[in-house]
């Protein structure tokens, strides 16, 4: 489970990649890069991992 900061950070990072023409990992009708990133994250196709520093 991601907390809201982790979620926002991942969506932001991914949306930036998409906006810079990275290949989209999922079939979607969305145009907006942020919306696409959200769809990707919710579909569980993003290979991004959150590092927990003090664990």
């Amino acid at each position, binding site marked *: 489970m991601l*907390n*809201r*900061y*982790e979620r*926002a*950070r*991942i969506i*932001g*990072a991914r949306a930036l990649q998409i906006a810079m023409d990275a*290949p*989209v*990992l*999922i*079939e979607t009708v969305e145009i907006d890069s942020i919306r696409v990133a959200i769809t990707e994250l919710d579909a*569980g*196709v*993003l*290979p*991004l*991992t*959150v*590092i927990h*520093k003090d664990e």
Partner: protein
Amino acid sequence: MVSDLYLLEQMETVLKGAVSRVVMEEAHTKLLSFNEKRDFSEEELQRILHEIVAEYRKARVDPGEPVGTVAAQSLGEPGTQMTLNTFHYAGVAEINVTLGLPRIIEIVDVRKDPSTPVMAVALDDEHRFSKEKAILAAQRIEGTTVENVARSTALDVIGAEFSIELDSERMEDSGLTFEEVIKKLKKTKSVERIRYDEDEGLVILSPGTVNLLKLRRFSQKIKGLSLKGIKGIERAMIKKEGDEYFVYTEGSNLAEVMTVPGVDPYRTTTNNIYELFEVLGIEAARNAIMREIQKVLDEQGLEVDRRHIMVLADAMCLEGDIQQIGRHGITGEKASVLARASFEVTTGHLLEAAREGEKDRLNGVTENVIVGQPIPLGTGIVELVMNPSFEDAKEV
């Protein structure tokens, strides 16, 4: 009604690991008592337990939440609504206590001499249920000076004598006898001769041959001579609360009041936070900070979540002694040079840090704002890595 054993079992399965130990303990005692009153069914119990977990999750903050800033705002806004009315008679037999904004300032500045120190003294089992015994204890606590029991005093400059007219009523109030007062006066070093003028009812003291200045000093010293009770306690009065009596004092001297016979040292407290810290330690001080701030807010009818106050108290007590909020405390002793420099005397801090070869690890918020990096708060605290072995990733 579910059995106590079933209740405990269900609590273990649903709550364990999901909520903190403190919450669990509190839930346990409360559920036990409510179960008796309301006869929970198994289903009701389940729903309550799951509700507890849900509420607990909702009340938690995410890592990266700027709790200090939120606490500062949550205390600061009600602060703007506070009336400036300084004094307030706390309902306790005319003891007045500083409340409102001045008191808040006093607390966060960790003032060692608060303007209105007061104590709430609890009494032991022998004294707390009887009015007479409580008065006795109050008399032992209340500091009484010669001036307090004198109807009048006079300084005879020509005869180099100081005369006191003792008030028998006042002496009785403080539980003193005429003989005790005389004895105490005789013991005082600078008193050379003492005699009692029976016709006038005057006690006449002489310091021997001294100059005028010394004579005046002598008279001041005698007036302030402590006859009974504890230094620093100006007034003590009893008040009934529930079925027991408490002694409330103006002035505070925790260490000594705790040793007075009849006093229950475990339940006795003072509003002088620094004194409490010196006598009982840092945890007591932390509790006192929270209690005193809460008292001010309650009195003004303002509602602030306890946890904001806890953050404040924790920040002040983190180092093991009480640090004030401001240049001589939390702000002034920040680990980062840049954070300190951004507060005040910028060049001074930078120069000193350069001279000592200080390093800045850029761990805090201020430092990172200065160098133009993302700050370690909120999304800035999240670190991401690519996971190359992630197999579900497939290109469209």
